[in-house]
């Protein structure tokens, strides 16, 4: 019975292209090549490996900034981009470094990310979509990039703000974060929308909307780092 299920559906904890490599990921973009090629990377200089991997991560950042119809983000997922983005976002959203609760505060962005991707994945699978857990973590993580940029601008604005400019800055910050939220929504829709039937797309998009909206609000609420 279990085999029939795995035949017609995507397994929960594995990528669609390679069921075996579920914890390794395909950072190099050479997913469909043979073992021979993988072994040959043992001989190459470390610098080349790092360059190639960084190139792959940067290319995916490009996909997040300028969304195109492409299955790259879904098929060759990796967790480097999400890790980098979530870490930076958690650092930016910290209210002060000296507090006792800063550790848990740091963890809350990660918790939110975990909860969000679990909700999105389970919901999408229940609605009949074909997507695995790490694929949705990858897409959700990479599409955080616009919101991360908004958080950076937000922090700079807060840093340079004086008492007289605060009301105007509030409006500017709000507009910037909302624009970034719209961008993140658009980008993730382009990637995750493909995995679902058109009639049910709205139902899949709602948890994604909630997830990004919450992060956008966290960024806006970060106004008073006292």
């Amino acid at each position, binding site marked *: *019975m*279990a085999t029939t*299920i*795995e035949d017609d*559906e995507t*397994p*929960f904890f594995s990528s669609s292209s390679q069921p075996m490599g579920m914890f390794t990921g395909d950072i190099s973009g050479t997913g469909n090549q043979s073992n021979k090629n993988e072994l040959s990377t043992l001989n190459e200089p470390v610098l080349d490996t790092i360059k190639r991997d960084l190139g792959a991560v940067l290319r995916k950042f490009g996909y997040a900034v300028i969304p195109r119809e492409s299955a790259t983000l879904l098929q060759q997922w990796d967790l480097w981009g999400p890790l980098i983005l979530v870490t930076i976002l958690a650092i930016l959203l910290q*209210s002060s470094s000296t*507090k006792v*609760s800063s*550790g*848990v*505060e740091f*963890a*809350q962005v990660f*918790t*939110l990310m975990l*909860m969000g991707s679990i*909700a999105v994945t*389970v*919901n999408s*699978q*229940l*609605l*009949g979509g074909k997507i695995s857990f790490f694929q949705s973590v990858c897409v959700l993580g990479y599409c955080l990039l616009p919101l991360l940029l908004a958080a950076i601008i937000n922090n700079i604005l807060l840093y340079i703000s004086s008492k007289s400019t605060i009301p105007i800055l509030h409006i500017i910050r709000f507009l910037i974060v909302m624009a970034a939220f719209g961008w993140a929504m658009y980008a993730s829709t382009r990637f995750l929308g493909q995995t679902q039937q058109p*009639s*049910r797309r*709205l*139902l899949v998009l*709602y*948890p994604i909307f*909630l997830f990004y*909206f*919450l992060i956008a*609000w*966290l960024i806006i*609420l970060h106004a*008073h780092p006292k």
Partner: protein
Amino acid sequence: MYNNNNNQQQSASLESGIPSVGSIVWAAGRSRAQQAINLYANLDYLRPYFDVEPREVFQRLVRSLIPARVSRDDIMKPELYGPSMIAFTLAAILIYQMKVSSHSVQDGTLIGTSFLVCFGYWIGSSFAVSSLSFICNTQLSLMQILSINGYALFSHCVVLFLATFIHTGYDHLLFYGLWGFVGGAAAIRMAVIIMSRTVNPRYRALLGLLIVSIHMFFLLYLHFAYHAMAETVAHALNDERNAADVDVAADLKPVPSLIPEVVRPTLLKRQIQVSAMNISRTTILSSSTSTTVAKA
């Protein structure tokens, strides 16, 4: 899977002649555990309840706030997409509320607490109502009650969302109004559905009262546990500060020579800060106890 088990048993019997009881128990237990762990099987079990169209969900959301006569097919088809999304929305609103009111008090547990409260209430109260309705001989399954109860939570979302974004000062006039109208409408609708499925009139009244009271009290709890308490603390702080400033000004002008001007306000402010810390500490304590209660 069964073939594997059979093979193992056969091999065991070939080796020792008799299949040892331990191996049989082990194989059976392992297959049971695999079935339980297999998330995919559990997902498949839930899949029929997520078979909806967006239009259907909107209709159900709107209808959940109108306590009118209920159509039969509305109850007959239980659905869990809407309720689970409503629970997520409620959790998000709660996180926002906590974030606004008690900024850095217990940040780490904010998300966990809100998710636990929302899903805990939804599932827990549904179980309670379904066991009660089983006693009262109501013809509703657990899934139907989960669906009805979940859609009734939509009123909580609406009320809390509006009450969070629109403040009316000390008197929670707006909140009480919304609580009565929106929350009441949803509670009455839920009660009407469940009562219409109960035969005995005495049980019917009992069930209806119980459902309405659970629903309304949870809304009150959500508002006052995570929002108003911190808000009153903030109000009190502001008032104390203002009063203290006024006091300082009034005290200093007539008797400037008794106490040096620099020391007095700082001392007072420190006192206020200490008292504020105490107040916030009590809020932490009470909120943590509430979470432990929720966990228990």
